[in-house]
């Protein structure tokens, strides 16, 4: 069974040639195709393949008329290249001298040349023994003779040599043409070279899959590789590999099923392969995206769960209590809890949840942000009933700079509009840290580190020890006890200009 399906076809020399030739074509298609998609030239590949019909027919007629020879591969190749060259020149001519944009110019010229080829072939249909249908749609059974195989090998060798030698030039002219030309690399020259390479690739791929499907060979394996590569070289290698698997897959399937054309099967295989990779690609794939989104816990939800511990950060809460406080689906809450657990912000013990030290710090920071936003909104004159809900939305902005700004602007308030204490940023007020007196609360002690700005009144000395007393006059006046037991009062600006190193 396995032997019949997999090995037996390989023993036939026709199949061997087809697979070998197909793989050679697939490799160059993939490698050049990478540039084609990165430079958005896919339409050009289409134009070139269509122009081939005219080239092949003309080459055929030429050899027949002057040398009386039939189906000369070399002449048809040269004819194709000339037709391709003509089409590309015509496209760039039209789009340069007129306001017609390149995509429209491509559409105009390649259909024109394709139509000319079709007319030529139909007019001389008695003399030309080219199977137009298969030429356009791809052959049903792939027959590659030795001369064709040789040609494919030579084309592949030349193209790979060019791509390898000029890798950097192609890379930079594709990525940043402005910089390339500033380095003295001729962008135009490499544009032409790449177009020439694309023509060669197209010409060698038409016998494999037909005119219409060539673009698929050129673009699809490269695009598949693009999904899983972040580097050009890797992308090219993978594109070649995906091309080869398409050729093998397509040929095997059409052999097994029989009666179906090989060319379309190869391209269809490539397309399905692309869709599969699109689904499962680790970074740019749909599945990965879905998984990422699924595992992503909304910040808001995490903060809401932390918010449950607001009243007493040290208390243990049961999951049902959390479910009651947080308005979200239970499974989402479970994920938020798992996320908090994985960051070590929460200890989960059966049904009981308790904040860890870091979790508590985070909860306190959030609470501080919430209460400062509430105070700020009240300061702007917002009615008391709306404060909580608005602040709940705004507290997602709780980066240090924003919170410190609010704190300073509001004069470092001690309580929020509902009379609840505004906690301090514990992390910033540990022993040894240097902070402005304005940020300190009653009981903090330290030595004066520096005096910035101008101060009036009794002089304070750097290095002197101080202890912070209670705030007076609605919290607008700070009090300090100096080392000699004297007390002083500071206004907000004075408190802001004295930095203390905490004991």
């Amino acid at each position: 069974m396995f032997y019949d399906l997999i090995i037996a076809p390989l023993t036939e020399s026709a199949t061997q040639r087809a697979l070998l030739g197909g793989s050679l074509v697939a490799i160059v298609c993939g490698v050049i195709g990478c540039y084609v998609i990165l430079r958005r030239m896919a339409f050009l590949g289409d134009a070139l393949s269509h122009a081939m019909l005219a080239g092949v027919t003309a080459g055929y007629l030429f050899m027949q008329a002057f040398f009386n020879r039939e189906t000369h591969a070399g002449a048809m190749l040269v004819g194709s290249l000339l037709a391709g060259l003509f089409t590309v020149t015509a496209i760039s001519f039209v789009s340069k001298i007129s306001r017609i944009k390149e995509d429209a110019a491509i559409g105009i010229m390649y259909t024109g040349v394709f139509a000319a080829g079709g007319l030529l072939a139909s007019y001389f249909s008695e003399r030309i023994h080219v199977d137009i249908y298969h030429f356009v749609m791809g052959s049903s059974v792939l027959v590659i003779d030795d001369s064709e195989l040789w040609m494919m090998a030579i084309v592949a060798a030349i193209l790979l040599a060019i791509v390898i030698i000029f890798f950097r030039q192609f890379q930079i002219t594709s990525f940043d043409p402005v910089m390339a030309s500033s380095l003295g690399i001729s962008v135009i020259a490499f544009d032409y070279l790449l177009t020439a390479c694309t023509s060669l690739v197209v010409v060698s791929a038409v016998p494999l899959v037909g005119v219409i499907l060539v673009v698929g060979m050129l673009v699809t394996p490269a695009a598949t590789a693009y999904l899983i590569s972040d580097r050009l070289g890797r992308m090219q290698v993978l594109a070649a590999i995906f091309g080869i698997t398409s050729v093998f897959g397509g040929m095997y399937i059409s052999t097994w099923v029989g009666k179906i054309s090989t060319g379309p099967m190869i391209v269809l295989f490539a397309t399905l392969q692309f869709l599969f990779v699109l689904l499962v690609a680790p970074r740019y794939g749909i599945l990965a995206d879905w998984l990422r989104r699924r595992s992503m816990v909304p910040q808001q939800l995490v903060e809401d769960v932390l918010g449950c511990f607001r009243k007493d950060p040290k208390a243990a809460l049961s999951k049902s209590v959390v479910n009651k406080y947080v308005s979200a689906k239970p499974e989402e809450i479970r994920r938020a809890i798992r996320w908090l657990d994985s960051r070590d912000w929460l200890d989960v013990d059966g049904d009981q949840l308790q904040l860890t030290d870091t979790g508590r710090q985070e909860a306190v920071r959030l609470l501080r942000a919430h209460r400062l936003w509430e105070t700020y909104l009240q300061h702007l004159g917002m009615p008391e009933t709306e404060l909580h809900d608005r602040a709940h939305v705004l507290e997602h902005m709780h980066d240090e700079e924003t919170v410190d700004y609010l704190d300073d602007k509001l004069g470092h308030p001690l309580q929020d509009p509902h009379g609840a204490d505004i906690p301090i940023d514990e992390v910033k007020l540990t022993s040894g840290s240097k902070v402005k007196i304005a940020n300190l609360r009653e009981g903090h002690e330290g030595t004066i580190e520096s005096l910035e700005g101008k101060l009036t009144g009794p002089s304070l000395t750097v290095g002197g020890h101080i202890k912070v007393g209670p705030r007076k006059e609605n919290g607008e006046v700070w009090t300090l006890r100096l080392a000699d037991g004297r007390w002083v009062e500071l206004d907000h600006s004075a408190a802001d200009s004295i930095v203390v190193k905490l004991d």
Partner: protein
Amino acid sequence: MSTPAIKVQNVTVSYGPTPALLDVSFEVPSGQLVGIIGPNGSGKSTLIKTILGFKKPDVGSVELFGEPADQVRGRVAYVPQHGSVDWEFPITVRDVALMGRYGKIPWWRDASAEDKRVAREALEMVRMEEFENRQIGQLSGGQKQRVFMARAMAQGADILLLDEPFSGVDAATERAILDVLQRTKESGRTLMVVHHDLATAAEYFDRLVLVKQRLYAYGTPKQVLHPELLSGVYEGRLKVFSSLSHGDAPAEVVGQVKESKDPTES
């Protein structure tokens, strides 16, 4: 005092977890040419978009002539950045100017003679009337800017917001655009312009807004272009400070320390 043309009040705007603008407030009286300065990513474009009503503030409000910004239609015009226009679009200078009238032409009729007259006057104002029939791509950088300013004026807008109109134009063009800005201002309109060059800011504008997430300063160029303020905002990344004419130092804050009794004794 009359109602200010633009009143930005305690505006906080965010795209994500950190605010792009935080608690920004200022007022621009009618008929002023105001520059917006600040380093890259400091929220200048966001400020323009918020005034335009394109971006809704999280907190705070924007009022134009005393009315909420989102209720004022057609009185604010925006001159887009150069890069966001398809310059090969088949449209002439005259058509672009006429576009300014589109908000006032009902769908069932064509542009009236009156609309065309207004559009033409707007082009005359920016001295582009002789290019009426040119396709917009066939103009110099400064001329392109002027066409879009004409469109704004044909719109009848009293407030013009321009995002970096001077970027990528040569010195002569910059002068020409500035000249149009000045004359637009003299016709009683209010302009806010995002500007990059601190060296010319004092000369070009009546007032400056210095933003970096927060409003660092707002006032006359003399008040705003103070090296201490700027080096705080630009974090010493600019060397032009020394060459700036020194403005007034920001008023010095004096902290007060007083002897007191022991507050813990009741």
